[in-house]
């Protein structure tokens, strides 16, 4: 169930989601938050088992804080995604998989990134991506409108359109749209020296 989308722009990254949580054929919640902010530069959009996803998000949050304190500068988006994917992979190999497909969106020194991390532990970097039961419909919209020179404002519109289209035809998605925009960092490269 669910529709989530992530779009990389030249100004950063945009994530979008619907708000429905399904319990079989019943709508369990109409106000679910499916986009979790890890910090000001990273967020994760969740599709799949909410409890599993919440756990992964909590671990990622803690680990990112810890690493930044220790080494003096934050994890890149790719490093954060690999960290989560490793947890997913070890879960899979222990026959207790995390039933999730996550869109990791964030900005770092190199700009905006969108990564897809699933329960197999694989990660792929994408220009745009969709996940959840509504994703085939969302992809239809994304594929026809997306282009590389997109701005955050345009991406916001496209993400809204993609999730809205999925909500029209996918019974697993609905009850409103959430959008998160993460703008690119203003600092091009940190010149601060690591301390302690």
């Amino acid at each position, binding site marked *: 169930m669910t529709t989530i989308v992530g779009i990389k722009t030249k100004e950063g990254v945009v994530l979008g989601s619907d708000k429905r949580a399904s319990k079989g054929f019943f709508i369990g919640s109409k106000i679910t938050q499916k986009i979790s902010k890890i910090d000001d530069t990273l967020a994760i959009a969740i599709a799949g088992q909410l409890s599993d996803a919440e756990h992964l998000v909590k671990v990622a949050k803690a680990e990112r804080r810890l690493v930044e304190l220790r080494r*003096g500068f934050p994890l890149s988006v790719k*490093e954060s995604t690999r960290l989560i994917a*490793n947890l997913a992979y070890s879960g899979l190999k222990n026959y207790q998989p995390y039933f999730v497909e996550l869109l990791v969106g964030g900005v770092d020194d190199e700009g905006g990134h969108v990564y897809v991390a699933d329960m197999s532990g694989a990660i792929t970097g994408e220009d745009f991506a969709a996940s959840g039961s509504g994703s085939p419909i969302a992809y239809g919209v994304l594929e026809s409108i997306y282009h590389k020179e997109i701005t955050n404002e345009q991406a916001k519109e496209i993400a809204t359109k993609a999730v809205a289209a999925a909500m029209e035809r996918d019974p697993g998605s609905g009850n409103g749209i959430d959008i998160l925009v993460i703008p690119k960092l203003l600092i091009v490269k940190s010149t601060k020296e*690591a301390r302690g």
Partner: protein
Amino acid sequence: MSEERDSGTNNNSSFGFSGTTTNNRGYLSYYGPGGRMLLVESALEAVSRGSTTIGIKTSTFALTSSHIKPTRPLMEPSEKIFTIDEHVGATGSGYIGDILQLIDELRLEAQKHRLTFESPIDIASLVKHLSSYLHTYTIYAVRPQAASIIIAGKDQMGTQMYQVDPGGTYFRGSAFTIGQSSDVALDVIQHEYSADMTPEQAIQISRKAIEKAVGEQKPLVDTGIISVTEQLFKKL
């Protein structure tokens, strides 16, 4: 009669081992007079008898060099400059067996970071790992590692150089000397160091420093370098 307090200067006869003392209740104590850690100080003493070893860093390169003590004919001297990962090198002074063990610990941590984050490890994290590894040897009844390590590398923050001592203490800086007559070597470097020197000049300075320290003409010196313009830590 008042209880006699542990002065720390009492005998160590019950263990016959100079690194520790026993207090008046007969317990083993790692602290000596003035709260000094005797085992760690012994390790530092062993390091100061090791071969003269140098690290020099500017904003464009980081260099490590170490004196190789002459060996008997037909015997190959052991290498003193170690590649930790593509972008990090290290050298050390003290017991070579301990140095090798610590080098392996660093290499392992560097590869663990690659597995966990799919990126090369930053030098601060590497140093912190070595520091906490060494620190565990100061809180249990074991022999601390008799080796100081100089780590040179580069990461997102630029070129980096650290010295890590047997107790887990570490320092960040632009020049370090450890081992035999390290104070003599440091004097030479302090006089000749300039922030805009070339790698060639730094190599000359490190050679001169080691020459002065060991009081030997043309000593055998092992050198390794990492610069911002090149990807890899290179042994010269």
